[in-house]
């Protein structure tokens, strides 16, 4: 089930809130677990059993680890291997076989396996649990329902943020609900919904129109397409995170921020501190630092960075353009650290370079294949004597100019600051409430009339 659907907002959510608030403290985890399973099964009626297996397995491994202190390490290794095997099989098997066939001229049977929704997210949460348990950060969760509720918690189950067990373990048994908190969550949810439905979907239509033009697009059209995707993925994904955080608040959970105005960053390094923060944190915590981080010799550091970014790329999908995209960022980060940081550049220039690098990155990310990505880049840089501006580009600019300006405005911290200011000024609160109601009504209008609007991050 997706948040931006009529069934979620007007069936699932009312039922959930009703049950959750009515049931006494002790039963809330069970309600959360059962509803989250229904939420997941709505989109994956069969793979829900895979998720149940994953919960059972990691829960059991946790108990075992605590029981057999001496064999802790072996148990950890075993459970990490099994977790990675599951995600590896369901996500990378087809890709692996295809490439083995291509390289060694084999003809191993390729089986198309549908990717279970959210597997990358919940497996990473489970891994954080077993690894941190091994490190002795906390005691094993003995209550199966509480553990199951942690893994499946529907607000962040299928597209993050990736919540580490360490950050939320106290809340699994002790959290507080209040009317004010519900309202805070509702406001956050509405903002996220509007970002997804009013901005991301709209600007996504521009991206689709440019895609449909094929290879012979004018330079301006190609740039409009790239810009559209840049905004679409930000509002889509950060909107989803806003909704998750808002829903968390409604249920008494506190999730960390996942985005902090990434397009306002002044370097690629800074960008990745602001984009999908929970994923970056996960890789730093469980891959980069265990490899030695940056407290190693230069060559080793280069190796560490490239490994982390290769994996980050692969995490987003089993295809060569994600690999390329990951390594592209690895190299950019190294370039910044070892070369660019030694040169003093004006901030505005650094920001422009960052956004340029990020837009180019999204071209690789959004393309169906590497050749297609290069084709788009060729169009963006005017290769092959194509027109700079044509009628189509003018039409697109006219149809989507206003949405593009809106997207740009809401990408920057100014919009956020304005919102905060309104919250603090007593006189501005009523207009703010009205604004929220209008957003909710407009979002509903869009939801009701578009039956099909998948989230981009479901692919991962």
């Amino acid at each position, binding site marked *: *089930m997706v948040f931006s*659907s*009529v*069934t979620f*907002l*007007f*069936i699932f*959510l*009312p039922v959930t*809130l009703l049950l959750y608030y009515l049931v006494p403290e002790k039963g809330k985890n069970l309600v959360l677990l059962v509803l989250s399973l229904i939420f997941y099964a*709505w*989109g994956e*009626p*069969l793979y829900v059993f895979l998720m149940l297996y994953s919960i059972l397995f990691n829960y059991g491994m946790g108990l075992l680890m605590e029981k057999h202190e001496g064999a802790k390490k072996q148990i950890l290794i075993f459970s990490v291997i099994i977790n990675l095997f599951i995600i590896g099989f369901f996500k990378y098997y087809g890709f692996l076989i295809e490439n083995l066939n291509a390289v060694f001229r084999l003809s191993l049977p390729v089986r198309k396996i549908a990717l279970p929704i959210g597997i990358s997210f919940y497996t990473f949460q489970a891994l954080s649990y077993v690894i941190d348990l091994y490190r002795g950060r906390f005691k094993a969760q003995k209550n199966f329902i509480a553990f199951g509720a942690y893994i499946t918690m529907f607000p962040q189950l299928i597209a993050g943020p990736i919540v580490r067990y360490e950050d939320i373990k106290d809340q699994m048994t002790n959290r507080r609900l209040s*009317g*004010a*908190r*519900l*309202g*805070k*969550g*509702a*406001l956050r*949810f*509405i903002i996220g919904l509007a970002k997804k439905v009013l901005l991301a979907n*709209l600007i996504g239509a521009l991206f689709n129109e440019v895609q449909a033009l094929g290879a012979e697009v004018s330079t301006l059209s190609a740039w409009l397409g790239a810009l559209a995707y840049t905004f679409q993925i930000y509002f889509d994904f950060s909107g989803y995170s806003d909704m998750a955080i808002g829903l968390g608040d409604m249920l008494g959970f506190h999730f960390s921020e996942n985005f902090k105005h990434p397009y306002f960053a002044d370097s690629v390094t800074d960008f990745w501190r602001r984009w999908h923060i929970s994923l970056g944190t996960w890789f730093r915590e469980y891959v980069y630092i265990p490899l030695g981080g940056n407290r190693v010799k230069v060559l080793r550091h280069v190796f560490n960075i490239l490994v982390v970014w290769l994996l980050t790329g692969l995490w987003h999908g089993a295809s060569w353009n994600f690999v390329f995209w990951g390594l592209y960022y690895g190299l950019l980060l190294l370039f910044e650290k070892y070369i660019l940081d030694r040169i003093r550049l004006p901030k505005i220039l650094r920001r422009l370079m960052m956004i340029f690098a990020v837009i180019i990155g999204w071209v690789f990310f959004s393309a169906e294949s590497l050749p297609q990505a290069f084709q788009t880049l060729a169009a963006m840089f005017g290769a092959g004597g194509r027109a700079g501006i044509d*009628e*189509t580009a*003018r*039409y697109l600019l*006219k*149809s*989507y*100019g*206003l*949405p593009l300006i809106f997207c740009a405005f809401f990408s920057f911290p100014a919009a956020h600051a304005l919102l905060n200011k309104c*919250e*603090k000024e007593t006189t501005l*609160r009523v207009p703010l*409430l009205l604004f*929220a*109601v209008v957003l*909710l*009504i*407009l979002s*509903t*209008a*869009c*939801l*009701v*009339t578009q*039956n099909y609007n998948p989230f981009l991050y479901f692919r991962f």
Partner: protein
Amino acid sequence: MKWYRRIAGFLFIIFIFGLAAAALFQPDRAYSPAEKRNLTQFPALSLRTIADGSFMDRMEDYAADQFPLRDTFMRLKTRLSILRGSVESQGVYRCEDGSLMERFDAPDRENYKETLAAISAFSARYKGPDMYFMLVPNAVSVYPEKLPAHAPTEDQNAYIDRFYKDLPLSIRALDLRNDLNAAAADTQLYYASDHHWTTDAALIAFMNYKKTAGLDNVPPFHRSVIANDFTGSLVSESGFSVPAPDAITVYLPEEPEDFYYTVSYTNENLRRASCYETEKLKEDDKYQVFFGGNHPIIEINTSLDSTRSLLVIKDSYANCFLPFLVPEYRSVTVVDPRYYYDDIDVLMESRGFTDVLFLYNVNTFAEDTNLKTVLKNAQ
């Protein structure tokens, strides 16, 4: 800060619970007049439909289709799109004068070749009858100046040129473009709210056909408006509104006293004495006043003392054109390949038509995959 957040929470709860309750207590609708389509009903619930996810998919459609105030929310959404500068919705353009036009999209090349091959083979198979092809341009190519600025659309003129060039010589191409363009300024050739041409445009086409097909005793016609509250398919498709509803006109011929005809809807087992189904004027799709809409096969027999009998293979553009033909032939047989499942060769051989007319509008013809199937029937 607290009271304000509580109010926010309260409003949110009222909103989602209120609409959920309204949805629960409001009876489901079977049909949406505004969208001109059947709405999704509550899906079948079984272990199988849950396991394959079809229950959930249908449920999403059901919840959206039966949503309280759906029509109001739809209008709101359209208002919003217009506000942000959109002139297109679902392939329909909203022109400066408020009229709506269907965009022409790049046709599929394979389908074009196959359809052309099927037509050529058909004309080679039947050397007897005179064959005509009338490919009617759509509003986008007759009124290109009305299109929103820079609006992209494929070139229909090039398409028609190409098609008439590729057509075998044994089929006579009826090119309406000069006549339609000449009349475009003074006559409304297409409905503002619907994808069909008007009866006025059909008359111009008939005059063109008459010359080529050598029809001489064409009676004078009386033009009369039979409806002026027609809101057509482009409105329901796009969600855009038009400044005013369209009028539907008919041309009634001054026929000799002793002339009569019968219209048989063979598959439906119905027989009528008129081309017009005035009952349909009470419904949404008032264009159905012509023959009550599309039928697999219509057989019209007249009292005319003539040897000429005509087969029309057509889409819905023909519906308002056919009445002009009726007084000219002993019989007119009308086949709509989109609904026709019988053997066209049996029909051809049993009836001995003297004339065969293909009548399609460019938009439908470019997307049509049924004509080639019907024409190929024998092989």
